Every structure is written in C-alpha cells, then in structure tokens.
C-alpha cells in the first residue's frame, strides 16, 4: 500500500453554486411569482482538469466542474493539496426552485470540446468548444433530483472522467402543511409517508400505529427541508452521488487534450472500475463528513438524494432502518434495456422525476447508471432491538462521545450503522482493500435531540 498517510481525507470545499440571498423557503409567500424577465439566479461553472488522490494512495487525473460564482468556496481540495482550487467530482450542488429562470455560464478551460446537459431538462443542453464559454437560460424543472453532465460523444466518456453533478429543484413550500420534497405535487402515498412520520397518531390507523411502535422513543417526527439555497446539504437532507473510477480512462487525460484510444469506442464494455466513490471519496475517507454522514436523533427523518453518475449498477443497502423509496428518474436511453425494476411504473422516457404512487420500504435500492432516486430514512428506533432496550438506553443516557466509562453490560450511543453497496465488487479499492469502497455510516445519537444542541 502506497497510501500517502493515514489521515482521513475530508470533503472538498463545499458550497452550493446557486448562491443567492439566503431565504427561508418555509416562509415563502404564495403570492410571489418568479420573475420571468430576469434570471432568478446566475450559475457559473468551469470545466477543468485536476489530480485526485484515491483512498489507497493512488492518484488519477480527473475532469471536473468548478463553481465560479462570486461566493464560491475556494478551499484547497482536501484530497490533494496540489489540485486546482475548487475543482471536484462530482461537481458542485446546484440548488434552485422549480419555475425559476436559471442563467448558466459554462467556461471550458480545456482544449477539447465538451457538452453539458441536464437529464430531463431539454432546454439546458449545450456544447462548449475548447477555450470558450457559453451562457444560456432555462426554467428550473419540477421539484426533484437531477443530473447535470457532459454527454459529448454520447458514450459517457467524459462523465466517467468526472464531468457530472447534481441539480436539486425545490418546491415552493407555501400551502404545504407537512413539508415534503415535492410540495403540492406529492402523490397521496408520499404525503401519507410524511404525515405518518410527522404525526402517526393523526393517521388514526392501527396498521400505522403497529408499524411505528408506540412509546416516547417510538414516535417519529417531521422532515425539515434545506431552507437556504446556499447550502449543499442539510441536517435532514444528504446527497449521495456515486461514481466509479477506471484509471485507464483517466490516463487518457493530458494537458493538450484526450489521448486517442480504442478504449473510447465502447466505453461501457471496456469499463473495469477499480475505485468506487460517493461524493468524491470512499471507504475510511467516506465514513465521516456532514455532507454524507447522517448523525441524527429519533424523529428526524432524513432525505437521501441518491444518484449514480458512473457506469456500473449499484445495489445500495442500508442497515438500521429501511428507507421509503419516494421517487425515481432516468432516461430509458441511458439506463435501458431496463426491465420493470420496482413497481408497475417504468422510468419516464423523458428523464422527468416519477413520484411513486406506491412507496415501498426497502433495505436495498437498485441504482442503474444515470438513475436518480430520492429515499427517506425515517430515523425510527431500529425495530428489531428487543422491547424496552432502546428506552433503557435513553434513560441511561450513555454516549461514547460524552467520554464516559466504556466497560459496561449496556450498549452506549451512538448506534452506528453502515450503508454500502451489496454488489460487493464495489466494496474494494484497487482490486482489494475491503471495505475501502462504496461504504459510509449513519448514526442514531440518542432518543430525542437535546434542546441545547444547535441545529446544523
């Protein structure tokens, strides 16, 4: 192992590119209509190359998007101090509101031509010649999770080199009694999930009351959205964007262009991924970081926007709680030939977000390349802990982080659970090194959040 050192690499500089005046979205007025003559937000991105260090110490050349906005955080890339400021894979989170007019400027600092598109948003498609820049406007799509990426050439080559990221469209929450990620568009099934989590007793349904065991630590709570467009993620909202790296493709990236190779004629058949990343890191490096790791209390359901920006299928498996699968989206041309994966609704051929009319609770969710799925982790008491044990844990109040004595016949908080891909080849790095691949954690820190703890 030639790993550089054993320090944990953190997230690269994190900021939302769509920075506007921070606005509390829950305080929005229903009467405010988005301006149509001037853009609501101007997003500026650059395409550039940089070097990224991987979990086992190997380095690869990447292509990436960089936030060029006025409020961009130009932190040193934590994965490589020599890297270009602000470049990252996946690219910066773009957070907008449905119906906004979004102006986008993309500067291509590379010599070769690149493309840009947002799946499901045909107006947001362009081509940028080497060394030039393009500006265009589009209307932000219906609330949900979207992928922006470079599909120039149609084979996903630049995407697996790193040119992909996530755009989040939020609803206007006005008139929505119980917040959900889709506002008034939410299906009755999705509304029922959020209502049941916020207040199960209000459902007056013995099935629900049996589903969530009664008692002070069994009652879930409401989901709270990210209220500030300048935040990439929130306490109850994480973005899990998975990528894979096959270094032989990255080796084609040179300062003067992309080396001609027979590999690129059929990227998919030649793709043998050796590194499996989420939000730009893997394994040990992925086990901490507020952008990824959920550290919440009971009753703080957390939205996970999962997207697969790579070229291999993933079977994401979470321990500790099942998730509610709220929505999915993909282009059949990207994902196909896809069969009916989960429900009786097939993916939309337009790439639009399909809101589930039947919300399944799962511990595994399937992610084909270019698929997006929003899932909700309820933060309920893990249901198979023996009766009474969790309440006793809360009553004892023992937490590892409090620095208390650890020799005990009772288990302390936090309860820590993994999320990993069960297509286990993805648990490797460089052909071995289990579990330095696509694995992270989430934590239940206790029964209820102490009121003295500040929010994120």
């Amino acid at each position: 192992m030639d790993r550089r050192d054993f320090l944990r690499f953190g997230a690269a500089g994190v900021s939302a590119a769509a920075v506007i005046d921070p606005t509390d979205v829950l305080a929005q007025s229903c009467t405010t209509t988005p301006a149509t003559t001037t853009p609501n937000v101007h997003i500026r991105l650059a395409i550039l190359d940089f070097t990224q260090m991987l979990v086992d110490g190997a380095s690869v050349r990447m292509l990436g998007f960089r936030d060029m906005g006025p409020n961009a955080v130009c932190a040193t890339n934590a994965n490589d101090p020599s890297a270009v400021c602000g470049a990252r894979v996946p690219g910066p989170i773009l957070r907008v509101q449905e119906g906004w007019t979004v102006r986008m400027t993309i500067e291509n600092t590379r010599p070769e031509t690149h493309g840009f598109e947002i799946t499901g948003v045909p107006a947001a498609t362009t081509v940028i010649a080497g060394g030039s820049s393009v500006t265009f406007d589009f209307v932000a799509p219906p609330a949900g999770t979207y992928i922006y990426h470079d599909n120039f050439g149609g084979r996903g080559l630049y995407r697996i080199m790193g040119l992909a990221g996530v755009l989040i469209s939020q609803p206007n929450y006005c008139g929505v009694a119980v917040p959900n990620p889709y506002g008034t568009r939410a299906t009755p099934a999705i509304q029922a999930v959020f209502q049941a989590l916020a207040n199960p007793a209000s459902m007056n349904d013995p099935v629900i009351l049996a589903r969530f065991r009664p008692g002070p630590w069994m009652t879930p709570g409401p989901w709270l959205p990210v209220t500030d467009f300048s935040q990439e993620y929130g306490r109850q909202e994480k973005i899990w964007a998975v990528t894979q790296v096959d270094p032989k493709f990255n080796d084609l990236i040179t300062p003067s262009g992309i080396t001609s190779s027979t590999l690129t004629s059929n990227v998919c058949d030649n793709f043998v991924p050796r590194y499996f990343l989420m939000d730009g890191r893997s394994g040990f490096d992925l086990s901490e970081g507020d952008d990824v790791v959920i550290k919440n209390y009971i009753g703080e359901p957390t939205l996970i926007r999962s997207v697969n920006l790579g070229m291999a299928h993933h079977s994401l498996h979470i321990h500790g709680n099942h998730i509610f699968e709220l929505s999915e989206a993909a282009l059949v041309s990207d994902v196909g030939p896809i069969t009916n994966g989960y429900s009786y609704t097939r993916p939309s051929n337009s790439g639009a977000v399909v809101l589930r009319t039947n919300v399944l609770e799962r511990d595994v969710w399937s992610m084909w390349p270019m698929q997006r799925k929003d899932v909700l982790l309820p933060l309920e008491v893990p249901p198979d802990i023996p009766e009474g044990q969790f309440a006793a844990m809360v009553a004892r109040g023992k937490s590892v982080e409090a620095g208390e004595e650890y020799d005990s016949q009772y288990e302390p908080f936090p309860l820590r659970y993994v999320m990993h891909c069960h297509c286990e080849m993805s648990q490797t790095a460089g052909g071995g090194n289990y579990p330095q691949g696509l694995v992270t954690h989430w934590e239940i820190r206790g029964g209820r959040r102490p009121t003295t703890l500040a929010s994120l």
Partner: protein
Amino acid sequence: MTHDQHTTDTPVSVADTNRAVAPTAAAATVTAAGIAFPAAAQTLSPKSTGVAGPGEFAGGVVEFDKTAIAGQETFLNFGCEVAKRNPATPDWKRANVYFERKVFGEKLRMPDGVEVDYWGFEDPLRGNGARPFPSPVIRVQEGDLVHVKLQTSKGPHTIHHHGIEPTTMNDGVGHVSMEVSGSYIYQWQPQHAGTWIYHCHVNTVLHFEMGLYGALIVDPAPDAAGKIRAFKNGPEYQVEKLWVFDDIDPRWHDLEHDAGLCGGDVGLNIFRPRYFFVSGIVNTRATTHSTVAVTAKRTDQVLIRMINAAYSVMRIQFDMDVEVISVDGHSLNKPWAKPYTIPRGEWFEMATATRYDIIIKPPYMARTGKARFQFTDWITKRVHGATSTNRLYVGYAETNINFV
C-alpha cells in the same frame, strides 16, 4: 488452492474473562451482575428452525473501547486490522428461541466435474451434520427474543442478519463493532414478518460469494384459526417455495479468507460467474428439481420467497400474473404501499440482496407454465456467459410451475 482458514478444527478464541456467570435456574430473574431476565416471551412457532430458549448464556460486561463501538477509528482498523473480539452480549435478555451457526469449509462438485471450495454455516443443534448449500434457514416468529450463536473457525467471521435492524453490537459489521474470533451470541427481536438473509460481513465481497449466507424467515403469530399467514392479516398460503439466486466465479473461490484486506490487487472488483444456482440447485437441474419447481393443487395459493444472493442483477419472468405482497421484509399493507401485480410475460429485476415475496392465486386456468431467471452483468447488462454453447455456463435458469 487452500481453505485452511476454514477447516472445522477447534476454534481459536480470544480469551474472554468478562462473561457473567449463567443463572442456574431458567426462572432466574436477576444475576449477581444485576442483569434482568424477562420471562420468555412466547413459545416456539411450529415452523421455527431453532430450539427453545434460553440456550447458552453470554451476558456480561463488554470492553467497548476494545471494539469499534468506543475505540478510535483509524485507516488500519477500518479494514485491515479490524478489532477481533469474543465479547459478551450487552443488554442481555432471556431468549425464547436459540440458534447456533458454525462456520465450515467444504467442496461443491459442479456437473462438469470441477470442484469449487465453498464456506457455509452449519447448524450444530438441529442440522444432523448436514452442510447444505445455501446454509440452513433461520426461521422465527414475530416477537421472538432470538439468540444466534456464531461459532467461527480459524479465521474471524460475523453474522449480519440482513434487513433485521438490531443494535450496532448485534448487527455483525466488523468495522463498527467487532469481528468474532471464537463465538458471540447475537440478540434481536423481529418486529416484521417477512423474508430476510443472514450472512457473514467480514471481507464481505469474498465471504458472501464463498457461501456464508442463508435465508431468514420471520413468520407472524398463528391467526385465530391457527394458520400461519405471510404476515399478520396477510394472505394465506398452502404451498411455500424459497428461491435463492446465486452465482459462482470459480476464480474467487481459490482466494484466502483475508484476501486483499491489507492491500494488494486480488481482483475482487472483477466478477465473472461461471455457475448459476436457484436455492443451491445448478441451473441445468432447476427446471424440474423439487426444491425449485412448484407443484400445487388448483385450490392452493402459492407463496414464493425470492432472495437475490447473486452479484448478478436478476431478471425474472413468470408465465402467469403474480402478486407482490412484501418487499425486503416489509409487507405492502400500508397507506403508502399496496400489493401490486407483475403481469405474465413481463421481466422484472432484483438487485443483489433484494427480497420479493409473491403470491400466485387461483383460479389457475391456463396458468401452468414456467418462471425464467436471467443472471445479468452489473456493467454490460448482458446475460453472463450468453455466448457459451454449454447451457451450464449460461446465466439462465427456469423452473416449472404446475397446478394439478
């Protein structure tokens, strides 16, 4: 070729001095260490594959700082040097159903004569020496207080009861708790009837492939008429099948227990399966083999529990309409989730580790037919071995469904 880590010699244990003394009488309620023992919750389900509790005692004090529960997480102990312990079970409760699972190594002989090493869990209590592939089913009832004792072999292992959601110590993931080098008793109390898996979570990429897994079924309590349904107030069934899909890449089966764990390229990112199974039956024999094929009366409802234990993405098709009643152990009887029909002839997918419980209902006119299974690649989406002229090496199986 070696699997000497997995002989069934006397296990090597880390000395463990912290276990409390077992209560001598089953009715004991509190030990000297102050551990409360609730009375046994319920009697064994008639379908249980365990034995009546309480079984072996392993409560006591745990040195959490010598596990990942309270130890400092480092790059080395995340993967290469995971804590290997043999601790007591914290928050000990008296079990009403008890299992043991002991790791073994064995060889599977394929129809082409090739012998492939595999590892599994055997059942020392009720297994009569059998070493089935896949490992024996753990079958319990909702509300059971379950203890599962893992007995390792030379190398460390764990049991993760996949989809069952207990505390971290009982979840079987080494790098957030500990790997077991000897024995540990896992404690959980299932709340949801359905279909699950149990498997080893050490070097999982390899150990799951090597065969260290089995099905886990949670039944509801019998209804007022004494019938055991698919879940409480759920469908009745007269015929039950368990279809567990698996695929084997023989190259992987020559690897060592800890292959790649501390560095080195052992090719565990590349999976090219050559043999394909449904519930341990090789593809060429699955069509009519009674373990897989369904034979039912025309008045029967058939429950099929499907588990994808392969690293292939499974594509499945039935010649008759089937109703999905439960997914990943959660029944579709909620305001947000209803049962739904997969129409005859439609292919649907199961990602690795997914479970679907489906029902085939009467009437069965013209519903005798087949179910078909394709094992497809996670990148190319193609059926594995599709170009092979030997059906054995093609990632395809089918089985008969007959109503007589």
